[in-house]
């Protein structure tokens, strides 16, 4: 097929992972004419390769594996007749006016120019690579990000290596440690820069299950091995994360798996001038996940890195609801926007603006682990006690409409040890 096909929709959802699929399903249920686009060969984003459980406890009220979660959303989308293209590469977004936007994409079925009233951007995140975390040395085979290793093993059935060092103790790194150990590989160490582990408690347990050593306050600084990784150099760091001379040692291995966090993919958004929050790396959003460009919404890991897919799907639904309100009212109705502001010990906080028109869930991460704390919102006199907070576990708290209405211009969230 040749030429440019021109088509028209109420909402175009970019990204077919859990955020995008939940958004597309919800938008269709709300009666909108929706198009879902994904650049992969199949829908589901990274879920089909996340074969472990821990998905869906909130969203489906049932514990599922990643592929099962994706399957349920895909099935629902197909039942509803959501239009979608896979292997669709979005080249550009244009924002002509509040209700006239264009998405240009190419796919095996040809090139398309889609005219739409709203866009939900759910492009997810990308993984940080070795060179981004200051690892130098040889570039032999055997260096993978956790996601790459997972794709090889759990989609293609190929073992990336036998003697493994994992860099980073976030959830993906720990889950890959278990996968490697289960497949009979020797996981020699998990190396974590921070003085505390990065993952959820249920994943930390994996290390115990397989007797895998965890080195806290350590970092991998160098890889040796011209053709294939042979060994890595590890060094201890002090409380300011500075390397401590004389503490270096080498670990022999044939594979290094980098699990050093995710970075929201926002390129198409920044191209059209959406404002970015430096703390999350994602766009600034209001309580319906609308970006600073009217009618362009975002959801999921594009906005902030979530630890549960359930929250990602919830954000997708909210954005869909936002798209509907936007179309009906020619914008998101509010008397005035109230700014949600980070106070003491809060590293990141979403959404950035509240309309006061509805109850909202706020998502936050603290700066450091603390026990027995009080979460305070001084402007509205709300307080909440929590026995424990950790940077690895995102806080999701509800603010009621009536409470939000008590604030004039801003609401601060702070986390104070008692």
């Amino acid at each position, binding site marked *: 097929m040749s030429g440019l096909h021109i088509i028209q929709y109420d909402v175009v959802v970019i990204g077919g992972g859990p955020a995008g699929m939940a958004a597309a399903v919800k938008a269709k249920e709300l009666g909108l004419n929706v198009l879902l686009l994904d650049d992969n060969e199949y829908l589901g984003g990274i879920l089909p390769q996340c*074969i472990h459980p821990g998905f869906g406890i909130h969203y489906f009220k049932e514990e599922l594996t990643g592929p*099962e979660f994706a399957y349920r959303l895909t099935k629902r989308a197909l039942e509803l007749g959501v239009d979608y293209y896979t292997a669709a590469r979005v080249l550009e977004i244009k924002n002509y006016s509040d209700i006239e936007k264009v998405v240009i994409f190419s796919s095996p079925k040809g090139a398309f120019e889609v005219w739409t009233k709203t866009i939900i951007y759910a492009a997810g995140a990308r993984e940080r690579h070795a060179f981004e975390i200051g690892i130098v040395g040889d570039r032999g085979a055997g260096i993978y990000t956790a996601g790459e290793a997972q794709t090889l093993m759990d989609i293609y059935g190929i073992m990336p290596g036998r003697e493994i060092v994992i860099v980073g103790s976030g959830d993906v790194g720990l889950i890959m440690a278990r996968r490697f150990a*289960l*497949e*009979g590989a020797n996981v020699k160490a998990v190396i974590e820069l921070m003085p505390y582990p990065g993952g959820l408690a249920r994943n930390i347990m994996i290390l115990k*299950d397989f007797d895998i050593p965890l080195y806290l306050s350590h970092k991998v600084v160098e890889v040796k091995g011209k053709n294939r990784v042979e060994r890595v150099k590890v060094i201890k760091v002090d409380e300011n994360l500075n390397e401590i001379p004389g503490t270096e040692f080498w670990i022999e291995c044939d594979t290094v798996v980098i699990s050093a966090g995710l970075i929201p993919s926002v390129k198409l958004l920044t191209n059209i001038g959406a404002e970015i929050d430096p703390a999350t790396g994602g766009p600034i959003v209001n309580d319906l996940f609308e970006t600073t460009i009217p009618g362009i919404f975002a959801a999921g890991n594009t906005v902030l890195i979530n630890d549960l897919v359930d929250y990602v799907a919830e954000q997708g639904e909210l954005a869909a609801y936002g798209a509907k309100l936007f179309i009906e009212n020619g914008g998101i109705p509010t008397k005035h926007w109230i700014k949600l502001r980070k106070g003491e010990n809060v590293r990141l906080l979403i959404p950035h603006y509240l309309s006061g028109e509805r109850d909202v869930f706020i998502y936050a991460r603290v700066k450091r682990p603390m026990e027995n704390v009080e979460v305070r919102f001084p402007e509205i006199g709300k307080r909440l006690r929590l026995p424990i907070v950790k940077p690895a576990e995102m806080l999701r708290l509800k603010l009621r409409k009536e409470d939000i209405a008590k604030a004039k211009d801003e609401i601060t969230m702070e986390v104070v040890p008692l």
Partner: protein
Amino acid sequence: MTSRVYLFTCIVCPLGCTLEVEMDGDKIKEVKGYTCPKGREWAIEEVMNPKRVVMSVIKVRNGKLPTVSVKTAEPVPKAKIPELMKFLAKLEVEGPIRVGQTILEFEGIKIVATRET
């Protein structure tokens, strides 16, 4: 009789209490650190008979993808897991496969597909 102390972070709920199980030989002497009975039960189970649901992938011929992801329909005793993994590694099945389909059984435990292929 030797006494041993096992330490865990409870994963039953997000509170994550630190649990301590003291054993006297093969008998439980004391469980400490739990905030609710669920945590106590879990700690005892963890010491006496730890079990895990096992996830893996199996090679597929003529499927949409080269593998199908699977899980055990029920938790498997930890000691049995290496044997189960070896068994799964040797398998190759014929596509197409539906989600929820029992692919085969291992010592009476169903191996269920979690991905379409």
